[in-house]
Structure formats: C-alpha cells, structure tokens
C-alpha cells in the first residue's frame, strides 16, 4: 500500500482545451484527496512546454475547438514515446470528448482538410463531419471492474471509425443514447448493444465530456485509488450517488438502443 502524501495532476492544454466543465474532473479528484489529507498539485502544460509524464500521477486532456485540438495533437505527437511509456507504466489518464481524436491512428480536424497522424494508441480513425451530435448517454462501464452504471453527455461534430481488426478494450456498453454513436465492428449487434470509448491499461478515453468524474463517483473513486495507489481512501459520495441515481432513474423507462 502506498502512503503518498502528495499527488500531481497534469492537465494537458488547459488553456486550449477547456471547453465545457472540464475543471470538474480535477475538482472531483481534489475534493477526494482533500478528504484524505493528501496534497493535490494541479500542474498545467501546453504548447511550448516540454511535457513531463514522469513526475505526474494523473493526466487529463479535454475537448476543444478544432483548431486548438489540432495544435494540441501536433504538440503531443512530439512526445509520443514518453506518452506511450507512461501509458504502459499504468499512469492513470482520462481523455474526454474531442481529446479522443488525438489517440487514434489519424484525425481529420475539419472537413476537406487532410487527416493528421494521431498517437496511434487505439485502432480507430476520426473525422470532423461538421454534423452536431448531442445526446445523454447511460452505460455500463468496463473500466473499474465493477460494471457500474454511468451517466454522461456527448456533444460532438466528429465521427469515429474503428478498425475491424481492433482488439482494443472498449470503455462501456451503451444502454441509452439518442442514436448509435459509432460504427464498431466489435460490438455484438446480435445482442443489441453498442460500445463507446476505449481503455488501455489505466488510460480511459471517452467521447463523454465535461465533469465525468463528478457525475460518476464510482469512476472518481477508482481514479483516485489508482492515483494514490491505495484502496482505503475516505470518500463520502452519498450525495453524488443520489444525484447519479436520480439521473439514471430518468432513463429507466427508455428503450435501450
């Protein structure tokens, strides 16, 4: 068991990619660590900075405007070896919304422009279609090992195409969206479910944006445990659970997609 007294959260491109309540994810973790007398340092790095994945305990990257996402992806690509090593080491990471685009094989940030090389962590490509897709999302997640029911929100203009040969783990099995999110050959369409997001070690990538960790205290707890390296964190999440369950109840009568 770890006895970390201080943890460092690295928010990548906070100045470029802070579109929609992203800070809520850091707030959730800071809240939990404060309950446990663990000093939580928030470090922000962006264009022009030398990215340092060695001295951080968590990495966050959020959604942003197409031009900003493109600039961030180009910058992050310069640090691909260090980033991949950190993923392999199991550094907890959360990539939300459009940040997912940086992790694929390629990303087209605007219609008509040539696709750019991604970091290649996952076997999908993404392309901005300009068509807005907005939906509430409920799902059963596969990240914590607890198969928790989750609520999230998708607001995007990009489409994602998984490679048929992909063996990447998916983040969740969707229960409700207003329409299917992506073409995913791995999903068992015969069983009537579809997937969303991707997992690699302790990295979670999802199109669900905003303060995902506040909305889903089980995910927040899991990330906090990974970051602190211990299971015994104090976290009274009763109000958070109440809010989540109230929201999930509103979808209980709706047809699964």
């Amino acid at each position, binding site marked *: 068991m770890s006895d970390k007294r201080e943890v460092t959260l690295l928010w990548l491109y906070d100045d470029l990619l802070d*579109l929609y*309540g992203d800070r809520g994810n850091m707030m959730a973790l800071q809240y939990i660590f404060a309950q446990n007398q663990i000093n939580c340092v928030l470090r922000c790095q962006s264009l022009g900075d030398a990215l340092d994945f060695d001295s951080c305990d968590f990495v966050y990257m959020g959604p942003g405007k197409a031009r900003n996402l493109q600039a961030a992806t180009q910058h992050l690509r310069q640090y691909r070896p260090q980033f991949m090593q950190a993923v392999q080491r199991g550094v907890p990471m959360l990539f939300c919304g459009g940040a997912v685009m940086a992790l694929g094989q390629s990303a087209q940030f605007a219609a008509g422009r040539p696709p750019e090389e991604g970091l290649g962590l996952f076997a999908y490509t993404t392309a901005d279609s300009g068509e807005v897709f907005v939906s*509430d999302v409920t799902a059963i997640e596969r990240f914590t090992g607890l198969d928790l029911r989750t609520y999230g929100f998708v607001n995007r203009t990009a489409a994602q195409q998984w490679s048929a040969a992909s063996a990447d783990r998916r983040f969740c099995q969707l229960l409700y969206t207003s329409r299917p999110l992506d073409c995913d050959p791995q999903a068992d369409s015969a069983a009537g479910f579809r997937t969303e997001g991707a997992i690699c070690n302790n990295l979670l990538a999802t199109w669900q944006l905003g303060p995902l960790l506040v909305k889903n205290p089980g995910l927040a707890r899991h990330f906090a445990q990974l970051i602190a390296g211990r299971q015994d964190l104090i976290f009274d999440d009763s109000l958070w659970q109440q809010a989540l369950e109230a929201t999930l109840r509103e979808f209980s009568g709706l047809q699964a997609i």
Partner: protein
Amino acid sequence: MRFTLALLVGKLLAKLGGLLGKATNLPGQVALKICPDLMARIRFNGKVLAVTGSNGKTTTANLVAHILTQNGYSVAGNAKGSNLTGGVATTLLCASDLHGRARQDFIVLEVDERYSRLIFRWFSPDYPLVTNLFRDQLTRNGNVDVIVDKLHQAIGPDVQLVLNSCDPISGDLAPHNSRVYYGLAKTPLSTDESPNLTHDARVCPRCLGRMQYSYYHYNHIGQYRCPSCGYQSPKPQYLATDFDPATGDFAVGGQRVHTSYPSLFHVLNITGAIALCCSVGLPLDRAVAAASTFTVSKERLETFAVGDRQATMILSKNQNPVSFDQSISYLLERDCPGGKTAIILVNNINHTGHKDTTWLYDISFERLVGQVEQVVCTGPRALDLAVRLQVAGLRPDQVRIQPEVRQLAPVVADTTGDLFILTEIYDAHSILEVICP
C-alpha cells in the same frame, strides 16, 4: 403582391397576437412563409442598428433605443428580445407601412449571434455592435469559434463595427472592417487574476500564444496582450473611467454617467450603447445624459418583498456560465447586514431536455463560500447543483435541496437573510408563483 400580402397578414397577426400577448415571433414566421425575402424588400428611411454577442444584447439594445428615443428620434425595435429570424421579421414588418417602408429614424435590433448570418443575408445593418463572445449554450451554439465564423459570414465589408476593446475575441472580428471601440478602464472591482473559472481567451485568438492580462473585469474581459504576436487591447474611442461601485457613477469622455445597476458588465453595456449612438451622430453629452436615466428591465432584475425579507430576482441564460457568474457578482456586491440566502433553480437544458449539468462546473460557485448563509437548490437538477456546491466548498448544513419547486416555500422560510433568486429566464415565473404567491 406576395410582399404586400405578407405585410398585411403579418400586421394582422401581430395585432391579434398583441391582444393575446403572443405577438413577437409568429407574425414574422408566417409572413416569411408567404414572402421569404420579406426582410430584403423593406426599405429604411433611417439607419439600422444591430446588437449581437453572447451576453448583454437585450439590455444594450434597449439602452440604445432608450438613448435615441430620449433624444427625440423615432425608433422601432425588438425590445422584448425576440432575436431570431421570426422575431426580427415581426419587428421589421410592424415598423413598416403597407408599402414596406420603415419611416423611423432608427431601427434597433437585437439579433441572436447564431442567426445573424441568416438574418443579415437579407439586409445589412449600418452599425452592428458586438457586446462580447463567450461559451454559451454549447449544445445549441457550438463553441466560440463556430460563432465567430457565423458572424464573419454575417458582417458585410462596408459596415462599421462597434466593438468591445476589453474582449479579445469579439474585439478581433472582421479585421478589415472599419470600427469604433469602447472599453472600460481599470476599476476598484478589477482584479489581477480572472475571478471566474470560465476563461475563453487564455490563448490568443490569432496565434494561440498564451495571453497576458494586466487586469480583469470579469471572465476574459480585461486588458490583454499576446507576447507571441503582439495582439493587444485596442485603444477605445469611448472609454469608461473613474467607475465608483458605491455610487454607480463613472465617466465617458469626461462626461458623468450614472447607473442604478453598478456592475462592470453593465457599465460596459452602457458604454457600448453610448458608443453606438455617438457613431450615428448623437453628441456625447446628450447620449450620456439619456443613458443615465435608463433602468434595467424588471424582467431581468427585480427587487420585491417576501414577508419582511427583501428578495431580488436575477435572471440569467440557460447553459450560460458567464451570465450566471454575473448574477453571483450582483449577489456578492450587495450589502445585507442580516445575511443572504441564495435560491438557485437549475433545469434541464431548455431547448432539448438533456439532463446534462456540465455547465455548472464553468460557474464560479466557489465565490459564494463565506458569503451566504444558505443556498436552496431546486428544480429538476437540484441534486446535481448540490454536488457542485459541495465540491465548491459550501458546508452541508448550508445547502438545502428541494427539487420540487412547488414545495419550496417551507424550505425558504427556514432560511435567513435577504433572498437572492438566481434562475433562468424561462423558469422565473414558476419560482415566483411559490416565493410570493
């Protein structure tokens, strides 16, 4: 023939709708069905002034109309804020005669920034004023860059813009157009760091370099400079100076202005309205004198009594964190010896019904810590709001939760101090019915 028929039908519907209190959108929508290019066919004797931007449109447009009317000009406009295509069409057809001629000295239009390109494809305003650009209703509007693109499509090459020098985003619109800037000098309320979480211009809108600010008024509004490319706050022709938050007095061009709503946000609205009116030829002293007699619409800010307690209702826009931040600022700036209770109603996303409350994490609720006795959370997303307040640092005993607005009265009765009701425009009625039946 179609044009005349559209005018006739539209005017008739507006008259009927006026009796029913529903005259703002429908007449224009029907008239546009009959004559799709109706707005292009209307001829203006006077100038068309348009006000757009993320926040402050309605108030600024009403200010402009007030200043011009006070100075003896005939003015028509959409004072109620019906700022989409139907509402603007209704305003224009009501302003014109049966020959399609608008004879007023000025038409003052509030125009939704997202719809500006659809409206201004038919006619071009002589002077568009852009108040500011922020993240706003992302599910509906997209991000700020999307709005900038739409405004660029809406702004003709020959129009003169009236722009806010304190906003690095809207201040950089259509760089080849002629422009007049207005701004606000550093005030006692200005800060070295942004007092708000939402900051849409941490990087330069031109080169993505990290911006530096000398001071902030609120959010990303302030004095800025990009060290990478040199983009910086332009020098405003109309600069508000010497603002005194205690009295509501400030000066523009050496002329004293007074406001009964002494917030930095509103001082910028007033200065923008003065700049626009002076741009069309009104002398500064007359613009300033008229601006000082303006009061903010009771539909946005109203004070009343609830038993022996004073209550203030401050309305903001759905999914608009900057608007909500302004409501919090208003609460914080009031002096209430008996303390303060905030009643906050949060609904689902109003135009889609989505349950998402992401935008609450862009509002600086942290500023309420130590400043209020209690916060009452109500509406369909009351629990989500309570979580947000817990994360912000409010104590559990300070936060009361009652999702059912109809059952709010006993919860409010159990609180102390003056009441501040913070909610969205569309929910004001439901909460008022309960608080002061």
